[in-house]
């Protein structure tokens, strides 16, 4: 109440002292003083009567941007245009920065959840009912109120057969969908047929879920066949519902799209006057006025753009290979580099197909000693030197070290053990192991013979060097190592989607894939065989299809899946972490199921010297945690120049 009065008072005082000259959109305000509660450009519009005053635009209790990271300097000035580029037409790289508007947010350390658009949430006793209380007074970028009807509208579409949305997997329990009720404009109640404790994590994961479940009903209804006489199917609806293709669609982002140049080659965004987040002093965010992001598909053009100083701050699409070039260009380009992390446990991991089509290879791969021998045949130091210039660290394949399952002492020790088990390079030992399991016979070229008398030959699916040169290089190095073990390695390098098809159908024997995951509850499949990917295509298919297709799990696979089922039912967070650790122990004892090469890749972030408040360190690998979105990029600012 008091803050509200003070705010209104200060607004009135400021407005009445408004004798400032008309501010050009591109000028940066020197008015860093705490009296400016909103951007000068918006204040101008308020003065002209085109916008309601800031206290009416903000919700009753705006979200306060946190900055518990090193690198935050101070509250910033308003103004400026942030130029950057993206390499994919889906605008994913930008959305990781400026499209994180979820009901519930991950905190910066990824150790907890915090309120977003929802002020609070709570489960009932047995986890079958989740109630969310929305922040009151939040508005869409066109001024219309944001209420629970957005979520309800989304779920309506999910249940509608004519629309391609379906109730998401995480909302189902044993295949049964949830029901969504909205008793009032600021309450959402999700009812599940059974306990579904992980839902809040899902609501906070990625920018894609919050993009989907926040639909501006007041805008989209005119394309909905049930609400509008002009349309009798969802074709137009789907087109208009794509946020990065439709500048008219209202959004909840800090900057909303104002102009999309033909084909999406350049996208202009401007501050959202109704943005619901403020800084420590109650000033409405974002500080920066405009964003211009260009589509640059050629990697070398991106390099030149950075060197020429054309980007103000760039998180992704910067390759480690060009690091020395970027370092040299710092002075000339007037930028500095902060080294963030990929938090990858394996770049790449070597996935062995647990259910290989060839029965002999299948038996071999299921033999722990065989897998250990293969692990001994990977020269990790060499991989590191060649592919990454020694900037990464050799290790066994793990998920992210920073994952919140391994924060406690026990967990940290367990992770250390996991990292270093089967991370050795020793050809002699590997050869001995292979001899021990009955592969000591050799053919005339020196390759080992399988139990059925044929030459032991393995196909290694490797992405083409044009796609990921590091993985291609590492594939060659691994092949060399295994050849020394007496195994013939055939490198298979298809361009395009053939690789993925083979993976999904489980027709590969070995393939390479980068491994980075911060939360195994929502994305368990590096450790638990829950989906037809990575090293468990067929068992995963069985789990995903509810037992209808794929291969039924036995032994260790079954153990792992049982643990995951327990996790889904477990209410207590700490107990859940313990269950994950149990599963990791299984990997250490009975594994390795997938082999590691090197991990923990540094990822350079290019930041101009006049650009501030960017965290010194962050995690850019796994997308589920939406970095740098979780650092509130709306509180980055640029100096007045």
């Amino acid at each position: 109440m008091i803050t509200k009065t003070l705010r209104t008072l200060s607004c009135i005082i400021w407005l009445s002292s408004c004798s400032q000259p008309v501010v050009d959109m591109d000028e940066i305000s020197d008015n860093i003083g705490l009296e400016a509660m909103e951007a000068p450009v918006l204040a101008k519009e308020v003065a002209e009567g085109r916008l309601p005053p800031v206290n009416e635009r903000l919700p009753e209790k705006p979200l306060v941007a946190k900055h518990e990271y090193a690198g935050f300097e101070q509250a910033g000035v308003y103004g400026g245009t942030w130029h950057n580029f993206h390499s994919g037409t889906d605008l994913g790289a930008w959305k990781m920065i400026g499209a994180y508007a979820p009901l519930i947010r991950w905190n910066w350390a990824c150790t907890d959840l915090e309120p977003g658009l929802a002020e609070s949430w709570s489960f009932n006793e047995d986890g079958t009912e989740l109630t969310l209380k929305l922040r009151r007074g939040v508005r869409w970028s066109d001024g219309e109120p944001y209420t629970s009807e957005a979520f309800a509208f989304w779920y309506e579409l999910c249940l509608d057969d004519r629309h391609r949305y379906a109730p998401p997997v995480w909302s189902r329990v044993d295949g049964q969908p949830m029901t969504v009720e909205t008793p009032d404009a600021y309450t959402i109640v999700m009812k599940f047929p059974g306990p579904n404790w992980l839902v809040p994590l899902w609501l906070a994961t990625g920018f894609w879920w919050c993009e989907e479940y926040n639909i501006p009903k007041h805008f989209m209804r005119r394309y909905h066949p049930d609400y509008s006489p002009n349309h009798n199917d969802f074709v137009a609806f789907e087109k208009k519902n794509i946020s990065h293709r439709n500048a008219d669609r209202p959004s909840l982002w800090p900057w909303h799209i104002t102009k999309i140049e033909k084909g999406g080659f350049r996208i202009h965004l401007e501050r959202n006057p109704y943005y619901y987040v403020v800084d420590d002093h109650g000033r409405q965010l974002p500080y920066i006025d405009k964003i211009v992001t260009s589509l640059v598909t050629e990697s070398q053009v991106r390099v030149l753009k950075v060197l020429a100083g054309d980007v103000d701050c760039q998180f992704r699409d910067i390759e480690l290979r060009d690091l020395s070039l970027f370092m040299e260009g710092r002075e000339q380009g007037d930028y500095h580099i902060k080294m963030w992390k990929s938090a990858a446990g394996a770049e790449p991991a070597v996935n062995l197909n647990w259910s290989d089509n060839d029965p002999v290879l299948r038996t071999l791969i299921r033999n722990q000693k065989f897998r250990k021998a293969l692990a001994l045949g990977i020269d990790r130091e060499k991989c590191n030197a060649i592919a990454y210039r020694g900037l990464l660290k050799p290790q066994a394949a793990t998920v992210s070290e920073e994952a919140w399952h391994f924060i406690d002492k026990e967990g940290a020790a367990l992770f250390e053990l996991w990292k270093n088990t089967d991370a050795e390079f020793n050809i002699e030992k590997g050869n001995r192991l292979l001899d021990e399991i009955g592969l000591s016979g050799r053919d005339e070229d020196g390759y080992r013979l399988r139990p059925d008398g044929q030459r032991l030959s393995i196909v290694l699916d490797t992405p083409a060097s044009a796609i990921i040169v590091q993985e291609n290089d590492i594939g060659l190095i691994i092949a060399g190592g295994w050849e020394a073990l007496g195994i013939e390695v055939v490198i298979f390098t298809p361009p395009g989607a053939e690789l993925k098809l083979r993976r999904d159908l489980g027709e590969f024997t070995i393939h390479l894939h980068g491994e980075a995951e911060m939360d195994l509850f929502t994305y368990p499949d590096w450790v638990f065989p829950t989906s037809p990917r990575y090293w468990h295509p067929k068992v995963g298919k069985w789990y995903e299809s509810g037992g209808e297709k794929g291969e039924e799990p036995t032994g260790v696979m079954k153990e792992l899946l049982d643990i995951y089922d327990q996790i889904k039912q477990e209410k207590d967070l700490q107990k859940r972490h313990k269950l994950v650790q149990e599963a990791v122990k299984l990997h250490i004892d009975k594994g390795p199921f997938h082999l590691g090469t090197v991990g923990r890749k540094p990822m350079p972030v290019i930041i101009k010297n006049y650009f501030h408040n960017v965290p010194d360190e962050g995690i850019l690998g796994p997308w589920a945690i939406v970095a740098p979105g979780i650092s509130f990029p709306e509180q980055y600012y640029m100096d007045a120049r």
Partner: protein
Amino acid sequence: MSNYIKTHAISKVSESLTDKIEDARVDIGHLSYRKLIWRRFRKNRMGIMAGVILIGFYIIAMGADFFAPYHFNDINVLVRHVPPQALHYTWADGLHVYGLKSTQHVETLELIFETDATQIYPVIYFSYDARDQVRLMTSEGPMFLLGTDRMGRDLLSRIIYGARVSLTVGIIGVFLSLILGSVLGTMSGYFGGWTDHLIQRGIEILAAFPPIPLWMALGAALPPGWSSIQTYFGITIILSIISWGGLAREVRGKVLVFRDLDYAVAAQSAGAGHWYIITRHLLPGCYSHIIVVSTLAIPGMILGETALSFLGLGIRPPMTSWGVLLEEAQRVTVLLHYPWLLLPAIPVLIVVIAFNFLGDALRDAADPYSG
């Protein structure tokens, strides 16, 4: 590709002239046509030099195992991105290279190499390496005369091994075009009627296709399951697809003329079979023309393979060709920091220029009115 223009220009301009030569063939005295051409060719010094250079290249390419100091896939972590080392000669040590000292950049962990003049590694001739290959020149220490790439592989060796692919792609591709073009062109001109029509339309359609996009589309369509060798042949076929059309059209033109000449008609009325007439009477008249055209088409093929591999659509690693080497060099980092990786462009240039000179000389030799 510009040779494509050339061949057409030649055909249109010198058609009338070469017709006269063919007539002369039947009349000339004791020197055969071929000997005449050879004599004239010998006078063209540029042509001879080009021919010698090319023969040299092919010998080195075929004997890659012997001429190259290293294998093309010898990965060596310790010598990544080494700049070219100089060969020195002193009376005492013979040919030798100096040793290398490496330091690591603190922030970027890049290796920086300096020559260490205190260490001298003399060149060793005709020795066996680890794979039991006899190599012309090796050394106990690192001997990277053209530097190394990002995996520590010797660039000179990779260029030599790459020559095997790049040079043969041209020859085989042209050979394929030749066969296809000559056969189809002859059939077209000789049989006339529907065969002619069909083949002509086919050629036109192919000609209406822009070559690079067509190559790109076909290159992208190469089945991924193919091994490097199969991909190599696939690329050769793709490259030859474009050029056989032009050759076919010219051969057809020739055949149309010869078909009605006296000796051909005579043979026909004597009861000779089609095949006999084609091979013994018609085709030989085209030989000189075919040879010239082929020689001029080879560089186009080589450049085509280079371009395709450069785009990533051609030869795939671990096989290497000049195009693959250039593709690895097309990064700003490379161009600014490791410019020696662009050296494969030079053999491409030399070979293409040489082929052009050779073809030019052959054409001049076959044309009595020049000079």
